[in-house]
């Protein structure tokens, strides 16, 4: 069955090569449910996990490894973690399910933990953040800690976000490498998020934050037991968000990064590549020089003279949405915001909790009009109603084909906040429908 699944999967990938590849992945997994455990990998594994930011860290690392001339296979370029991973591996495996590469870079969370674990133990495991309550269950700290525990071998090196107190006691027996940001690199309140990380992970007393770096959390200290932000081996500095440059360990990096929450992902990717290849940071800066953020994370276009910016914000994940909302709210121009939200998958389809953990209040008085679309549109509109935004400024689009017309009646820069698949669909709709 593996051979048939691979053959048909490759065929579907070829026929639908302009699409995301998820259909090929879904087909392979339907035909061969134990697909992952039947693959044979010859190559070292880098794994990236966390509640938020794993895709962008993995994508930057993949670029840098390829720029170093290495053969890299990764699931981070596919859409949809479960089916996307299968699709990515279908395209490289031979008819017996074997493939070889220098590095297999895997983005992973609770959805595909069994799958990725069957491929082997990672040499290096990077954890972006561990949020206990935010986002889907597969991205919460309990699911991720279980994944980390099972994935890490005795020789696995762990790269951790120094700014997250949730990482304090992760696998203490393993070698830890940390990345972080200097205290003055960017101070932001992020009250909603810090409010949920306000207790010391060791003694349960109150944590004090002297600075917070754009939702990746920050410099924390517990006055009772002394737990505090550990020093970073890869330290982000000079990220003032206004110039296209920043530094890691004093080495300057050029960047096209648009939103502040993307910055900390660069020292993370740098740490991953430097540790994997035993490179100095200067070399990583060279490898990173021509890296451009995937349009799925940030895409700026003009359509008939109107500026359209789409930002990756995943439904069900308040941190992901908060980061996008913070960016949009800080833009001074007149703007319309399209929130394209999707309902949670069963059995929690009716769960709208995440909308109330997300700081939609940021749009109050900063967005002229907010358009709600997607199957979570009415729940999102109800949430917006409690932010103080006037009802007449909240539009609900019940039919996606009407989006171009509805958006056409709005003003200013159009910000689209949604997941990668919906973003592509909306961009196509707008191009087809003319000026929004």
């Amino acid at each position, binding site marked *: 069955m593996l051979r048939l699944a691979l053959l048909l999967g490759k065929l579907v990938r070829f026929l639908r090569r302009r699409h995301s590849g998820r259909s090929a992945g879904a087909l392979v997994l339907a035909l061969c449910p134990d697909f992952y455990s039947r693959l044979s990998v010859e190559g070292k594994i880098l794994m990236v996990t966390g509640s938020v930011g794993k895709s962008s860290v993995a994508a930057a690392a993949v670029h840098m490894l390829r720029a170093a001339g290495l053969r890299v296979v990764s699931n981070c370029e596919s859409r949809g973690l479960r089916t996307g991973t299968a699709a990515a591996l279908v395209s490289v495996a031979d008819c017996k399910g074997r493939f070889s590469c220098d590095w297999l870079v895997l983005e992973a969370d609770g959805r595909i933990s069994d799958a990725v674990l069957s491929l082997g133990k990672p040499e290096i495991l990077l954890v972006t953040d561990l949020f*206990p*309550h935010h986002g889907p*269950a597969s991205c919460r700290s309990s699911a991720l800690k279980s994944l980390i525990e099972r994935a890490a071998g005795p020789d696995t090196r762990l790269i951790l976000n120094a700014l997250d107190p949730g990482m304090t006691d992760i696998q203490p027996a393993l070698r830890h490498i940390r990345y972080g940001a200097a205290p003055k690199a960017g101070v932001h309140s992020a009250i909603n998020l810090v*409010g*949920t990380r*306000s*207790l010391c992970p060791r003694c*349960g007393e*109150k944590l004090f934050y002297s600075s917070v770096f754009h939702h990746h959390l920050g410099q924390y200290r517990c006055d009772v037991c002394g737990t505090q932000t550990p020093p970073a081996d890869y330290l982000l500095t000079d990220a003032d968000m206004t110039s296209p440059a920043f530094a890691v360990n004093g080495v300057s990096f050029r960047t096209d990064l648009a939103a502040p929450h993307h910055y900390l992902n660069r020292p993370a990717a740098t740490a991953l590549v430097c540790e994997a290849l035993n490179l100095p940071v200067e070399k990583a800066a060279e490898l990173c020089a021509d890296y451009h953020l995937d349009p799925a994370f940030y895409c700026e276009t003009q359509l008939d003279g109107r500026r359209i910016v789409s930002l990756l914000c995943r439904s069900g994940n308040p941190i992901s949405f908060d980061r996008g909302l913070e960016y949009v709210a800080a833009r001074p121009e007149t703007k319309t915001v399209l929130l394209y939200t999707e309902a949670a998958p*069963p*059995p*929690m*389809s*009716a*769960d*709208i*909790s*995440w*909308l*109330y*953990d997300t700081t939609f209040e940021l749009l109050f008085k900063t967005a002229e009009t907010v358009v709600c679309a997607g199957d979570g549109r*009415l*729940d999102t*509109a*109800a*949430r*917006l*109603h*409690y932010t103080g935004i006037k009802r007449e400024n*909240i539009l*609900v689009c019940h039919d996606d084909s009407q989006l171009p017309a509805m958006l056409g009646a709005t003003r200013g820069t159009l910000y689209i906040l949604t997941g990668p698949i919906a973003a592509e669909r909306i961009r196509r709709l707008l191009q087809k429908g003319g000026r929004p």
Partner: protein
Amino acid sequence: MSVRILLLYPEHMGLSGDKGNILALRHRLHTLGIRCEVTAAGIGDAMPFSEFDLIYAGNAPLSGLLPAMADMAPRAAALREAMDAGRIFLLTGSARCLLGGDLTLRDGTVAHGARLLAESHREVNRFTGEILATRPGLGRTLYLGCYDRVLETDAASERPLFQTVRGMGDKAAAIYEGVFKNNIYATYMLGPLLVRNPELLEELVEKLAGAQYRPRSEGFDTEAKAARLSLLEKKKR
């Protein structure tokens, strides 16, 4: 007129979008011209329950629930006084354990609630899902919610808040869910229960607003609920 709400243990509990309930109450009271004052109280803080019109606590994992229960249990007398005085308690998710009896954990240790409700809880494997329910004796209006819990409950001698049409009750195979006693509304449904169920919001607001209460018109929340129910109906067919 003003309404005072006491929000319990915000650093430990209320981490599943539960703040939606406070937002909905505050917004609705505001539309009636009623000021709404929310006071937060954490472990060790003074909690003069009887001085408040509504006391609210939201869902928490066991790591947050257990310290809150330990803090709440010694306050049983003050809680009982507030309950007898008709104060409204709204407890969503695992917060119902605060006013319940014993909670027995897997390792055999027992945490004590304030014992206002004749119910006991046990730690079990995790359940997640959706509930569709009616209110016993209160017509055929359907209520919607979700649960994500590691607890089950015996509350046979208490009046249930909901009778499930779909989804799990207090424990596996139970059709009753939650407790409705005096003005205590306790349910495993988590998150923004009052947004999901505008009828329940209106019931609480009517009690809080008294003579100033006026029925409301349709809103996005009622539309969202109707759409969800219609989707469930389609799936059933």
